[in-house]
C-alpha cells in the first residue's frame, strides 16, 4: 500500500445539520443519502485526489461536527487548513449567524486560510422561493467584504458541488505556486500544511 500524500487541508465548518457531510458525501462518493439525519461524531477525514490542469492535488477534507459540544476541539481541525468551506443553510437564517462566527474565528486564528462561503440546500429554495431566508446578494456582499468566494450548492442534485471543490483545488494550486516563488527560506511551521502518512510516523 503506497503512502497517501495530502497536499491541502480543507475544513468544513458550519452549524449542525446545514449539510456539511452531505456536501462531502456528494463530492467524494457522488451520492446523496436519504434517510434520518445522522450527526457527525467528532470529525471525519477523507482524502480526495483532484485533477487541476496537469497536476493531481490531493485534498484532505475534514468534515467537522456542527454540534457545540465539539467546539473546543474545532481548532485542531482548522489549524493549518489552506481552505475552509463555511456552510450555511439557505433556509435557516440562524445558520448564517453561525457562519459569521466561524468566519471571525478563522480571521482571528488562521489568516492564511482561504474562506469559501457556501449556501447549501439550493434545491429546496429553487423548488419553493418562499423558503429562502438568506438573500443571495446579502451573502455575496458579506463574501466580498471578507474576501471569500461564494457558492450556492445542492448536494441532492449535485448542483455546483464539483465547481466548489474544483475552485478550492485551483486556488490552492495557484497560491502554492506563488508561495514557492515568493518564499525562498524554509518555514518549519509550514510543515503542518501537508501531512505525510504511512511513511514517517513509524515508532
Amino acid at each position, binding site marked *: 500500500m503506497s503512502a497517501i500524500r495530502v497536499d491541502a487541508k480543507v475544513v468544513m465548518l458550519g452549524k449542525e445539520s446545514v449539510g456539511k457531510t452531505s456536501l462531502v458525501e456528494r463530492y467524494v462518493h457522488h451520492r446523496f443519502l436519504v434517510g434520518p439525519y445522522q450527526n457527525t461524531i467528532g470529525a*471525519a477525514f477523507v482524502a480526495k485526489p483532484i485533477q487541476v490542469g496537469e497536476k493531481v492535488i490531493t485534498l484532505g477534507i475534514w468534515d467537522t461536527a456542527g454540534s457545540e459540544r465539539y467546539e473546543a476541539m474545532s481548532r485542531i481541525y482548522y489549524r493549518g487548513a489552506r481552505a475552509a468551506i463555511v456552510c450555511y443553510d439557505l433556509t435557516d437564517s440562524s445558520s448564517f449567524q453561525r457562519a459569521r462566527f466561524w468566519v471571525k474565528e478563522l480571521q482571528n486564528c488562521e489568516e492564511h486560510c482561504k474562506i469559501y462561503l457556501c449556501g447549501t440546500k439550493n434545491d429546496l429554495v429553487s423548488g419553493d422561493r418562499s423558503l429562502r431566508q438568506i438573500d443571495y446578494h446579502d451573502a455575496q456582499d458579506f463574501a466580498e467584504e471578507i474576501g471569500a468566494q461564494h457558492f450556492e450548492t445542492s448536494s441532492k442534485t449535485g448542483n455546483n458541488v464539483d465547481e466548489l471543490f474544483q475552485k478550492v483545488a485551483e486556488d490552492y494550486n495557484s497560491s502554492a505556486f506563488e508561495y514557492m516563488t515568493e518564499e525562498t527560506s524554509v518555514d518549519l511551521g509550514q510543515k503542518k500544511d501537508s501531512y505525510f502518512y504511512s511513511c514517517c510516523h513509524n515508532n
Partner: protein
Amino acid sequence: MDAEAPRAAVSWENGTLAPVDHLRSDRADSPTPGLVEGTEPGAGQKSAMFVRAQSFEDLTAESEELIQREAQLDKPIESAEELEVLVGEKSIEEQHNNDVASENRTKEEDVSSEAWRSHRKHVFVLSEAGKPIYSRYGTEEALSSTMGVMMALVSFVEAEKNIIRSIHADGCKVVFLAKSPLVLVGVSRTCQSDKELLRELQYIYYQIVSLLTLTQLNHIFQHKQNYDLRRLLAGSEYLTDNLLHRLDRDPGLLLSAVTCLPLPSSTRDVVSSSLQAAKAKNLVFSILLAGDRLVTLVRKKDQFLHHIDLNLVFNLVGSSSSFREGEGWTPICLPKFNTAGFFHAHISYLEPASDLCLILVSTDREDFFNMSDCKQRFLERLNKRSAYQSLKEALKCPSYSVEQVGIPELRHFLYKSKSSGLYTSPAYPVVYQTDEEQERLMGLYQDLHSRLHHPTRPLRSLYRCTESENLMAWVTSGFELYLCFSPLGTKALAVSAVTKLLKWIRKEEDRLFILSPLTY
C-alpha cells in the same frame, strides 16, 4: 406474576461437576470445566483484558448513593406507603403525584396522550436545578414541569437527610438516581427490579459522561446552575435512545460482558498480533469489532478497559453511520477509566461495506495521522498473512446454532466467563425470531439475573417453569450460566445439560473466546 410462577431453587455443592482446585495448567489435559474463577471455560490464559468485573455488583458498588443506601437496606422504600415512614407526610407526596398527573393532562398532545403514558419504560434526565436534559419519549420542553416535580421530590426527601430511591404505585416503578450534577429517573411498567432499573440509569449516566466528561459537567453547573445541557448534548440523543434499546435487548449489557466473533484461534492470533505490531506511543487500546462482536482487543500494558466503557464504544459505533464516510476522529471519555478527561478515538471501517470496524484509542488529540498510519500498517500485515481472508470468511457466520451443542430441548443459553468478562450465546432459534419474542426472552433472563443477584437474598442457582419455557440459572465464582429449555424439559434434564454444555464450551473455547489477550 412473580408469585404465580412456580419455581424452585436448586443448589449444588461446589465440586459436583469438577474439583474446585482445578488448576489452569490442567486445562488442556482435562475436558472437565472448572467452576472457580480462572479455570472456567473461556477464562483467559494470561491476564484479563478488562478491569476485574465481578458481574454487576461492580457497576453499582462504587456509587456513593448506594453505599449510603446500603445502610438503610433493612427498610427499603418499596411502596408509597413505606415512603411515608421516611418522608413523614404522605399527603404531600400524594399531592405531588397528583400534580404530575394533572400536569401531564394539560400539556401538548404528545406527552398527555395515552400512548405516551403507556410506554413500558420512560427515562428522564434532569439537572439538579430541575431543568430537562433528556426524555426517552416526548419533547423535553413539554416535560419541563414534570421534571420540576421530580426534582422537587428528590430535594424534599433530601431536605430530611434522606434519599429517595423509588416509588411503587399503580403497577409502576419510579426509580431515582442522583449523580450530581445530574438526576436520572426511570419510570417502568416492566417487572424488572429496582436494582436492574438503577443499573440501566447508571449506563445512561455514563453515556452522558462519555460525551462531556464529569469535569466539564461539574464545571458547567458550578458556573451556571440552570444551564440548559441540551445545548451541549444536541445531536447525541440518538446515542442514548439506542443505548436504551440495547439495554432491552443486548445480553452483554445485562451480563456486564461482551461477546466475541467465533473465529479459529489461529486466525484470531494473527489478527491480534498484527494489531499488536501496529502500535504507537500514545495508543492505549486497539479494538477490532465485527458488528457488535469483539474480534480482538489489544491494550497497553497495565491499562485495562472496563466492560462498561467497551459497551459504550460498541454503542457509539453501532448507533452511527457517520464513521462510514471516512476516518472518524472523535474525543471520547471512558468514564470507568477516567471521568476527568478525553481520549481520542480513530474510528474507521476496514472497507466501505465491511462490518469490521477498527477503533484506535489514543491519549493525544493531535494523533490522527499517527493512528491512521497504525491502521494502514495493521491492514498491510493482515493482508500479508492472508488472515484477512479467513476473517472475512468467519464474518459470514457470526453466530452458531444451539443444535451444535447437541442437547435436546435446549433452546438458548447465555454463558459468561467471569474472569475474562466475555460471554457466549447461540443465535436465537426459530421460536424467538421476532423482536417481540427476543425481548420477552431477554426479559426472562433479566428476571433470573435479578434473582441471582438479589441484594439481600442472592441465589446460587434457580430452576423456573413458565408456560412457554423452562429456565435455569447458575452462578459460581467462575461463571454465570442462563439456560432456556422448551416446556418439555425437566429439571433432571436441565441438570445433566449443564455438564454437557460446559464441556462443549470448554471444547469450543478457542473459537468462542479470546484466550490469550495481548498487550503492546
